[in-house]
């Protein structure tokens, strides 16, 4: 599992909990992965959107400007489960090797 897949998993994970706008998504992921550039995270987020795992819609927060929100699709939820299973498998494999 590459770092790209792990960040995709994190993106799908936070979107499975709630719809978020671009800046907030980048901010949250960048907090967890400070060494990863935000442009890279945005590229992955856009890739997920292009592949149909997320979709964009325009929304407002009270008295705030219009923002593009990201919403996870059914295909995205399936992808999330696949990536999560891969992650558990990798974690268990590493655990059997004594890596914790």
């Amino acid at each position, binding site marked *: 599992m590459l770092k790209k897949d792990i960040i995709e998993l994190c993106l799908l994970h936070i979107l499975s909990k709630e719809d978020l706008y671009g800046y907030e998504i980048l901010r949250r992921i960048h907090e967890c992965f400070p060494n990863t*550039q935000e442009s*890279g995270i*945005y590229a992955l987020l*856009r890739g997920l959107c292009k592949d149909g795992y997320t979709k964009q819609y325009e929304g407002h927060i009270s008295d705030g400007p219009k*923002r*593009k929100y990201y919403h996870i699709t059914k295909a995205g939820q399936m992808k999330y489960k696949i990536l999560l299973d891969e992650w558990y498998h990798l974690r268990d494999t590493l655990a059997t090797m004594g890596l914790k």
Partner: protein
Amino acid sequence: MMNQKMYLKKFSHAIRWRLPKSEADEILADYQEIFSQRSKEKDNMLVQEFGEPLQAARLLTDPKMYHHWLAAFGFMLICLLVSEFMLLRPRQYPTLIMIVPFVIGLVLTMIWFRSCRTEKKKSLFPNGLLPIFAGFIIIIVIDIVIIMGLVMQIYNFLPDSFYGVFAYWTLELTGLVATIVGILGLIKARISDYSWCSLYIMALMVLLECALILGVLTNMDLDAVTSGYWNSLGMQLCIIGLIGLVGVGVNLC
């Protein structure tokens, strides 16, 4: 230090060159939205957090699509440069061979930018196109006046020996301007608005016509240059001009 405005400008150029216009517009809108929510005080961290604009654009590039664009751009550029080469090495090349780069360039621009033509346009001429277009047309008109005057021998003040040199340099310089304008048009058509490719088509047309005229003027076979030959050349120039203008019109409207 790069501020948000400078970063977006550089990023915009890079992304518009690498991606089709609709996709680049979407990404730029996203970046503008993201940047609008960032504190301006964090501008000194911009490159550190987002990477260099070119690098950020590279991450969003689909290599396959980008290579297709580079190939199309290369072919369109070659068409222009082959026409310029035929003008720089004036000979009476077979007309069919001279027309090939014009036709390929015209067809390629029509195919490549066809998806852009479905988009709604704000104005006929995007920013900056009109003055360059007008300037180019003025140069072409001056060129026509000079060449027609030389053919009709109305410049009495010029010694006879200068006629050929004057015609040669007029056509060569017009061709050079056309090549530069054509390359500019092609680049701007990609990064700004597809209407700019009308300049490229016009440049191809001008180069071909200059090369055809110069080919005749440098022809040593005096028997070939009869009035019938001039009529046939005039007809060829009119047809090429008409096709070129239709191409220009399609890309402008």
